[in-house]
Structures are given as structure tokens and as C-alpha cells.
């Protein structure tokens, strides 16, 4: 269970998150929607522990463990996974090598034995089959020269390999055509197992047609302005964010 | 015989004494530069800076300053003038200002376009403040020599916010004689914040006897300035052209300088650009046509002193006959110059068996967050492309000419000044076999 309490975060002195309360019980899929600049991506990056953002108040726990106390790699080992909006290219490092290092780091943390090359490839095969993803990207450098769709598929594949408890998808749908969107959402749906939780951050309702959330939160001006069921997403699609923005007082600058 | 033993103390001394006896605000600088030249001596191929350029013929020539009474008729300059655009024209013959051939015209209020000789008297302040600040005359013998003999040339001052609409065109005409002469034209271009200016320098020769032309141009650009500078080198077949360009620029300033090395026995194009403000761009380009036994040496240094600047060096050499070229492009990035983006390219096209190429693309980097790349290539025409064109009905030689022109055109097409671009296209095409054919193709669009 991910529990966020009264979370305030700022970047270079400007407050972006202004008191977020959010609880995601195990096995649930929550979505965060919101207009540009509402703080969606900041929330994702604060969860992952990027240093640019300073948490000034509040707490984040994952199954009771204080995430804010941990370095980004420790959070990952504890089971927090973020699918990046813009996955970074790492020239010269093959995806296979990278993933094996990541899998073994996480396994070491969980006091599991290191996978040797053979075991690792078996795992790759198994996960690729389960997600119907092809493994041709594995021999290329991490994200280097990948198309937008390939990058997002690689993120989902990494998610499957690392077996996280809590997955954060940061605008994974941005820049994807409908086919790629389906591949990504099929992957996520295949990973829904009743225990794993998801936080799906998106600007558009489109993705939520494929990954159906249990709860939808609307983030406006660094606060959760409204929470509802999946029908809230459809409402937003139809009416836009203006109504909620007005309601929460953004329009008059408060 | 080596050249560094040749610096007998009397080199140019009588001329120098005459000049320095005139006194004036530059006497001290001249004195210092002269002493420095004597100390440095003529450059040798054992030093790094002139490793590939043999200055022995210059050192061994009994050079003397040209006499002021050389006649040149306007008709002799026609082919060098810019057509279709008004210019502010200054003509110097063997380094001496020629009033009859010059036509400065009127310049917008506040702008000065004049002879350096007048400016030394009338704008002493500006001249003494900037002259010699953009080049390293203490380490380059030719720059030192020019500075020792600085007397006349172009002076240009564009005050803050003023756009000088029409290009300034300076023609350095050299008419060599029986005895080898030397001229040291100097240009000082000062453009204040927000100013804009274009300057074209044409160095042209009217005779093939040996002589030395040693022009130095300095550009001092403030903040948010835009300067386009061109130097066209069309010297006589016996001329050693050792040119220098110094450039220093402030915040948000964009300077383009392009050197077209077309004619002369030896052409050295030394350029030093110092990006001394943030967000600046220095764009140095050059094309060299190297035929006969010509040697062209592009010797560059770009100093990135402040963050967030871009620089480009883009130099193309086309070699035929026994031509030879050298390129040295040093990008220096100071520790503070983070986010520098510097690209350096030298491409050499070999069209003959005896052509020789030397290239030294160099990086010297002391900052970590920078993007610096350089590339150098040496090769012949793409035979497959030539064959393809041939197969489409273009004659073999015309196909080769077309590809050669395409190679050159990557430099020419960036010339902003349209009449100059057209002139360069014509000049290049004229030299290529079946160029006339290509010229007519070109005029289709």
C-alpha cells in the first residue's frame, strides 16, 4: 500500500505540490489526471526520489516503509517502479546487460540469489512471452535510437522483469499511436495480479479506456481537487479541466 | 639554410624608424610589436603554428614597403566589385589609400566608415582601446609585423543599436613590381551593443611578381551584435598572402566570417575567435581552391571563455595539380564555459595525384558539460555518384564538375550577401570543366 500524506514539494523555491493526500491499497489501479502544470509529473519524480525536487512537508510510505528516507535505488529495490515519460538513452550499455544488473540489484536487496546468464535469459523469455513482447530490443543500447513506441514498450518490459509492488506510469501514453498504446496497456493489464498497485498519470482519458482504473484523482494546482470512479475520467474528457480548475480557484489565481 | 638565423637586426629597420619617428598615439604599440617581431623571427616549420607552411621564400625575399605612387585604373577593379548592391567602398593600392577609386558614400548617423589613418587622429580613443586586443600578435610574427607597421586600412565604428544597411567593401589591390614589396593593411571594426554590419574584404592582385600581403582585421563586437565578414583572396600568382583575423564578441552576439581562398602563391588564413560573452555564436567558414602549386593554410583558434556559446568551423578544400593545404582548428573550452556547443569540420577533396593534405582538428577542453565534435575527411569524388550522373546523360567531366561544385557550394550557399554569393558561384564554375553548362543549369531555378 502506498500512502502519501500532506505532501509538499518545491523546485528552486517554487512550491509545486501543495499538500497531497493519496492512498493506493495493494492491487488497485489509480489514475491521476490533470491539466499541464498541475504537478502530475512532479509527483511521479518525487515518488522516485529525483533530487531536483525538495520535499518540504509530508510523508510517503510504501507498505509502511518511509520512502523519503531512501535513495532512488533503494526505493526501486523496495518495489517502486517508474515508467518514465522520456526514458533516457544510455549509449554503449546493452539493454540486456542493464536489465540483468537491475534485476540482480533488486534480487540482492530481497535476499534472493543472483541470476546467472542462463537463468536471466530464461526469465527474459518467460516475461516476454507473458507480455507478447519481442526481445529484439534487448541487444541494443538502453533506449538508444528507440522509437517512441519502442521506448515505452521497453519500459513495460523492465517493469515486468523487476517485479515491483508499486508501478508509477508517468504519461506513458504521450506520443503513442493506437497500436503502441494497446501493446503498452495490454502489458500493464497482464501485470495486474491483485497485489501489485499502479498509479497511472495521464493528461488524456484515452489510456484509461485500455487500463481501467479503480479510482481517478484530478490534480489541480498541486492538490487533489476531486476523486471519483472511472466515470470521472469520461466526464473530464467531455468537459475539460476548466470546471474543476474554476471550482478549486485556480482561475482567479488563488 | 634555416630561417630563424636570418633575423638580422636591420630587417625593415629603416622603414620602421621612419614610421615610428612620426610619433602619434600608436608609436608605443608599434615599437613593442616591432621588437617582438625581431625576437620571434620569421616562423619556421619546426614550430607548431607554421608546421605545414613554408615561410622561407618570404624570409629570403628582399622585401620593401611599396612606394605610394602606383596607378590603378577603375577598369582593372571591375571584376572585383559587388554588383547590384550599394556599398561603402574603400580602395587601397599596395597598402596606400586611393581616394579616386574609393567611394565611401554616406553612412547613417553616428556610423563611422573611414581610413584607419584618419581614425588614429580623429578617434584616437577607440583605436587605442581596441587595436591589437583580438589577436595574439605577441606570439605570431606576421601579426606582430603588421602591428609594427600599422598605418592605414579600414576603420569602422557602428554605435549601439544602429544597423548599417549596406556592406562596407574594402579592396586591397596589390600591383607588384620588379622588387618584392610588402603591405600591412589593418582593419578595425567596432560594433557596439545591438549593432549590425557587413564587411567584405577583397584582396586582389594585378601582377604575378613575388610580394607579401599581410592584412590583419580585428572585429570587436559588443552584446547582441550581428556581424557578417567576408574575405575574398584573389591575389597574383606570386603573392604570399598571410592574413589574420581577430574577433572578440560579447553576450548574445553572432559573428559570421567566411574566407574564400582562390588565388595566390601562398594563402594563410589565421583566425582567432574569442567568445567572451554568453549565448554567442561564432561561425567561421572557408573554401579553398588549390591548384597549381598553391598552398592554403587555414589556421584557426576558437576560445570559448563563457557558458552557453556555440561555434562552428566549416572548412572545405578542393585540391588539384600540385596544390597543398593545411588546416588547424583548435577549439579551446575554458573551465567556466559550460554548455559549449562546438563543431569543427574540415573536408578535403582530392582531384589530383600530387595534391597534399595536412589537417589537425584539435580540441582542448577544460569543462565537462560541453558538446564538442570535430571531423576531418580526405577523399576523392564519389565515383558512384559520378557514374550515376553519367548514366543519366551528363558527360563524365561535367558530372565530376557538378559534384565538385556541390562540394564547394556547401560553403557558398551560406553567404548571406546575395551578390557576393552569385559572384562566388560564377568564379567557382568558371574554373571547372564544363562549368558553363552547370551555370546555365543553375540559372534555371
Amino acid at each position, binding site marked *: 500500500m502506498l500512502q502519501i500524506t500532506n505532501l509538499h514539494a518545491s523546485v528552486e523555491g517554487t512550491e509545486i505540490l501543495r499538500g497531497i493526500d493519496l492512498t493506493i491499497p495493494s492491487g488497485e489501479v489509480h489514475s491521476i489526471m490533470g491539466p499541464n502544470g498541475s504537478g502530475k509529473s512532479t509527483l511521479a519524480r518525487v515518488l522516485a526520489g529525483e533530487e531536483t525536487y525538495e520535499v518540504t512537508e509530508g510523508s510517503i510510505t510504501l507498505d509502511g516503509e518511509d520512502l523519503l528516507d531512501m535513495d532512488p*535505488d533503494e526505493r526501486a529495490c523496495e518495489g517502486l517502479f517508474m515508467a518514465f515519460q522520456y526514458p533516457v538513452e544510455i549509449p*554503449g550499455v546493452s539493454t540486456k546487460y542493464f536489465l540483468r544488473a537491475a534485476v540482480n540489484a533488486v534480487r540482492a536487496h530481497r535476499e534472493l540469489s543472483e541470476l546467472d546468464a542462463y537463468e536471466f535469459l530464461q526469465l527474459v523469455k518467460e516475461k516476454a512471452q507473458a507480455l507478447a513482447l519481442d526481445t529484439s530490443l534487448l541487444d541494443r543500447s538502453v533506449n538508444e535510437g528507440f522509437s517512441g513506441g519502442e521506448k515505452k514498450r521497453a519500459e513495460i518490459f523492465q517493469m515486468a522483469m523487476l517485479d515491483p509492488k508499486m508501478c508509477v506510469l508517468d504519461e506513458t501514453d504521450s506520443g503513442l499511436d493506437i497500436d503502441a498504446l494497446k501493446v503498452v496497456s495490454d502489458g500493464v493489464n497482464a501485470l495486474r495480479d491483485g497485489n501489485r498497485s499502479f498509479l497511472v498519470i495521464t493528461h488524456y482519458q484515452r489510456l484509461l479506456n485500455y487500463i481501467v482504473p479503480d479510482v481517478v484523482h484530478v490534480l489541480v494546482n498541486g492538490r487533489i481537487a476531486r476523486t471519483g470512479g472511472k466515470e470521472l475520467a469520461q466526464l473530464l474528457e467531455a468537459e475539460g479541466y476548466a470546471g474543476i480548475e474554476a471550482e478549486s480557484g485556480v482561475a482567479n489565481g488563488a | 639554410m634555416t630561417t630563424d638565423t636570418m633575423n638580422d637586426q636591420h630587417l625593415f629597420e629603416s622603414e620602421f624608424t621612419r614610421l615610428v619617428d612620426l610619433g602619434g598615439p600608436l608609436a608605443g604599440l608599434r615599437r613593442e610589436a616591432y621588437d617582438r617581431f625581431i625576437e620571434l623571427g620569421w616562423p619556421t616549420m619546426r614550430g607548431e603554428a607554421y608546421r605545414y607552411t613554408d615561410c622561407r621564400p618570404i624570409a629570403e625575399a628582399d622585401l620593401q614597403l611599396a612606394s605610394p605612387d602606383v596607378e590603378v585604373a577603375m577598369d582593372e577593379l571591375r571584376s572585383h566589385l559587388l554588383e547590384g548592391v550599394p556599398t561603402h567602398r574603400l580602395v587601397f593600392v599596395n597598402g596606400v589609400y586611393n581616394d579616386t577609386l574609393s567611394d565611401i558614400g554616406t553612412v547613417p548617423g553616428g556610423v563611422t566608415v573611414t581610413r584607419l589613418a584618419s581614425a588614429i587622429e580623429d578617434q584616437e580613443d577607440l583605436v587605442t582601446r581596441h587595436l591589437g586586443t583580438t589577436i595574439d600578435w605577441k606570439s605570431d610574427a606576421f601579426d606582430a609585423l603588421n602591428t609594427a607597421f600599422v598605418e592605414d586600412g579600414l576603420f569602422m565604428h557602428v554605435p549601439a543599436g544602429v544597423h548599417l544597411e549596406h556592406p562596407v567593401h574594402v579592396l586591397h589591390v596589390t600591383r607588384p613590381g620588379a622588387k618584392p614589396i610588402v603591405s600591412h593593411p589593418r582593419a578595425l571594426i567596432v560594433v557596439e551593443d545591438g549593432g549590425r554590419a557587413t564587411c567584405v574584404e577583397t584582396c586582389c592582385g594585378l601582377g604575378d611578381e613575388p610580394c607579401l600581403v599581410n592584412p590583419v582585421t580585428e572585429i570587436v563586437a559588443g552584446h547582441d551584435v550581428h556581424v557578417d565578414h567576408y574575405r575574398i583572396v584573389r591575389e597574383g600568382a606570386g603573392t604570399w598572402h598571410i592574413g589574420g583575423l581577430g574577433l572578440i564578441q560579447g553576450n548574445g552576439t553572432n559573428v559570421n566570417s567566411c574566407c574564400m581562398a582562390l588565388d595566390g602563391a601562398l594563402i594563410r588564413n589565421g583566425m582567432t575567435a574569442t567568445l567572451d560573452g554568453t549565448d554567442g555564436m561564432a561561425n567561421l567558414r572557408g573554401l579553398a581552391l588549390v591548384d597549381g602549386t598553391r598552398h592554403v593554410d587555414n589556421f584557426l583558434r576558437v576560445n570559448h571563455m563563457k557558458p552557453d556559446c556555440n561555434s562552428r568551423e566549416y572548412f572545405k578544400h578542393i585540391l588539384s595539380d600540385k596544390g597543398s593545404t593545411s588546416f588547424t582548428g583548435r577549439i579551446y573550452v575554458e573551465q567556466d564555459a559550460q554548455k559549449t556547443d562546438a563543431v569543427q569540420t574540415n573536408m578535403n577533396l582530392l*582531384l589530383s595525384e600530387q595534391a597534399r593534405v595536412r589537417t*589537425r582538428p584539435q580540441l582542448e577542453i577544460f569543462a565537462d558539460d560541453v558538446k564538442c565534435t*570535430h571531423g576531418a575527411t580526405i*577523399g576523392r569524388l564519389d565515383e558512384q555518384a559520378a557514374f550515376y550522373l553519367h548514366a543519366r546523360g551528363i558527360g563524365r567531366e561535367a558530372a565530376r564538375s557538378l559534384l565538385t561544385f556541390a562540394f564547394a557550394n556547401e560553403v557558398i550557399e551560406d553567404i548571406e550577401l546575395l551578390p557576393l554569393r552569385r559572384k562566388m558561384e560564377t568564379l567557382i564554375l568558371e574554373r571547372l570543366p564544363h562549368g558553363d553548362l552547370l551555370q546555365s543549369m543553375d540559372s534555371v531555378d
Partner: protein
Amino acid sequence: MANDSNQMLDAWAEQNDYKWGFVTDIESETLPPGLDEDVVRAISARKKEPQWLLEWRLKAYRHWLTMDEPDWAHFPDHDWRPIDYNGISYYSAPKSDDDRPKSLDEVDPKLLETYEKLGIPLEERAALAGVAVDAVFDSVSVATTYREKLAEVGVIFCPISEAVHDHPELVQQYLGRIVPPNDNFFAALNSAVFTDGSFVFIPKGVTCPMELSTYFRINSLNTGQFERTLIIAEEGASVSYLEGCTAPMRDENQLHAAVVELIALDDASIKYSTIQNWYPGDENGKGGIYNFVTKRGLCEGDRSHISWTQVETGSAITWKYPSCILKGHDSIGEFYSVALTNMKQQADTGTKMIHIGRNTRSNIVSKGISAGNGQNTYRGQVKIRPKATNARNYTQCDSMLMGDRCGAHTFPYIEADNDTAIVEHEASTSKIGEDQIFYCNQRGISSEDAVSMIVNGFCREVLAELPMEFAVEAKKLLEVSLEGSVG
């Protein structure tokens, strides 16, 4: 100084039965510091060398006296301590056991930690640290073990001092042919005073059945300042030779001036790999080796092939340009290099590819990594001579900078005198992005592992050229060398 050394030499000579020999057990002795003709004679006598070699050394010495120390690569702000050539001892047999640490307990724990990280077994660690505990790693016995197996196929692999006696005709024919004694300041010095090194001869048509290595031998000799290596591959022969300098030296600013000469005849192939990890000095630039090495290969025969691979992580200052003279038609020269500088290290390294024969090819891949206050320079020359029709060169120089007090410099010299030449040079610089580290972190990978992963990725083309075991060692070495350079 010279006077003292003369007296010492006289004293030595008097003890001996014949003038230039040493009968006393001088294994535990070191020549007093200083260099003059008598020192050269003493070294030659100690090695019981033939007259021609003594004269060869003396000629080199006399020429050296007329030469100036080069200064092309000095960085003005570096704390360069001039080398006192009379302050060096030119013959230093293993130090007496009294001087050595008696056990690992007496060895600098930092050093041991490094060995442990390198995965070097305990016994070997002891040998590296100069502890006299084990003779298994004695070079002679190692070489001897292999020597019989090698002799079966006609391969000669022995210390060069032995080759002088056992194969004088080969040594005399080839020594100094590729690097003449007057080639440069340090080569001249080496020629005058070299004390050890390897000799390898692969006869016609033979593929050397195993990788040859000086890994143990150099380490077991307490000093390796002036090695001389000569490798000859006859027609159709091939050999892969590994040189591991993983023994950090403890002395301060010690000079290491080796010379390596390779000769490949028709269809022969020589692959020479180096891992250099001499003592780099400390964080403040105190101490460390001055590593001024001349390495050159001659592709004498048609279709011959010489390939240099180096991973340079040690030494305070490295000047080293392993080169290929591509004389045979269709010959190939290669240079793959990783140079890492941290703390106040300076590496000035690169290659020369001299194309003389037709259809010659050369390939240069240089990866420089600068961290801390390190300065890393690629300096290389590609020369296409007039008769080298259809010569090709491709050069790639990439630099990675870590931190804002280091430097990366690229000084190539490209000279083409033949119009059929195709020469391409590319260089780039990069840094490890914060975003790359964060991305790795988010997948559970620590920052330190992320850096070493990215650095290894940056170097992969070079590491791929190394034999397997060496590649593993090189990777670990890069990790160890970068430790603490990531904030």
C-alpha cells in the same frame, strides 16, 4: 654523485674474477644512483653481454647525452617535477629481503583493498606487494614451464637477456630496427640501460598455441623501469601477447621508459595488449610513475597485421604512442585505447599510423575518460605516403568528462600525400548525465554501479579487443580507478 658511483663500481670490479663480471651475489644489490658510461658498462657486464651489444648501448648513451628532454605534453599548471637522471638507479635487482614487508600485515591496507577488488588471489596479491612469500610466481619458472610446450612448435619466449646469449643472430638482426637507439630521448636512454624484457620469436607458419604474457614476470621483478621487448613473427605466424602492469609501485615519481618493437613479416599477425596500472600518485599528485614508453610495430610483410590494445589507468604521467609502420602491401594497423585519468594524473597517448604500402588500412579507436583533476590527451598522427595507393584510415576519438576540473584534449595530425587516400577522423565529448544516473537508480542500480556500467559501455569497442580474462580485469580496474570520483 658520478664519483661515488665510480668508486662503487671499482669496488665491485675488484671483487670479481674478471673485469666486468659479478660473481658475488648481487641479487640483493642495487647500483648507486647516477648514469655514466661506467654504469652502462656495468649493466652490460652484469648481463654478460657480447661486445657488440655493449657498444650498441654506449652509442645510444652517447647519443642520449646530445638530446633534450621533450616537453610537448606539459600542462602548465601541473606540478611537474623534473627528472633527475642522476638520481635514478639504473640497475636494481630485487631488493634484499630485509627491505621488504615481511608479511601482508605490513603492506599498506589500501593497496591490499585494491588487489582484492581486482580479484587477484591472495598469493598473487602478496607477490604484487613485493612480499617475499612465494616463489611460484617467479618469472623464470613460469616462462620455463611454458617454454617446453612452446619449443615443440618452435616458438621462442624468454627474457631478452637470455635471448642475447641463446639467439644472438636474431637479437642482433632485429634489436633497434624499429625503434633505433637515437629515435627519441627516452628510447635512447632505454637502449643504453635496459635491464630486462621479453623476447618472442614465432617461426614461419606457426600460430602460437597460447597467449603469451608478461603479467607475472614483470610483477615479480621489483622494478621494471627500462624493459625492452622484441617480438618477431615470421611469414604466416601469429601471436597474441599480453602485458599486464598491475603492480602499483610505491616509489615516488619513478621513471618507466620501456621500448617495445614488433615485426610482422608476410601474412603474419601480432596482437599486443597492455593493461597499465602503475602507481598513479596520490590525490594531491604526489608520487606516481612517469610512464614514457616507445612502442612501435613494423608491418614489414604484405598482408601483415599489427594490433595494439591498451587500457591505461595508472601512472602519474603517461606519454605513449604505440605505432604501426604499414610498409607491406595490404597490411593492417590497429590501435584501440582506453585511457583513464583521475586525481592529478595526465595521460598523453595515441598512435602513429604510417601508410607506406598499397592498400594499407588503419583503424584507431581512442576512448579517454577524465575525472577529478585528470588531464587526458589524444595525440596521434596518420600519414599517407605518396606511394600508399588506396590507403584507408578511420579514427574515432571519444572523450568522457566527469567533473569540472578535468580536461580532455584531442590533437590529431593527419597528413595525406596520395589522392586515393580515404581518411576519416571523428571526435566527440560527452559526460555522464544526471538523468542517466537517475534512470539507473530507478531500476535499483546504485550510482557507483551506474557510473561503471556507463563507463564500460563507453569503452566497449576497446574492451572487446582484449582477451577475455584481461577484459574482465580491465573492467574492474576502471571501476577501481574511478572510485570516489562520483559525488
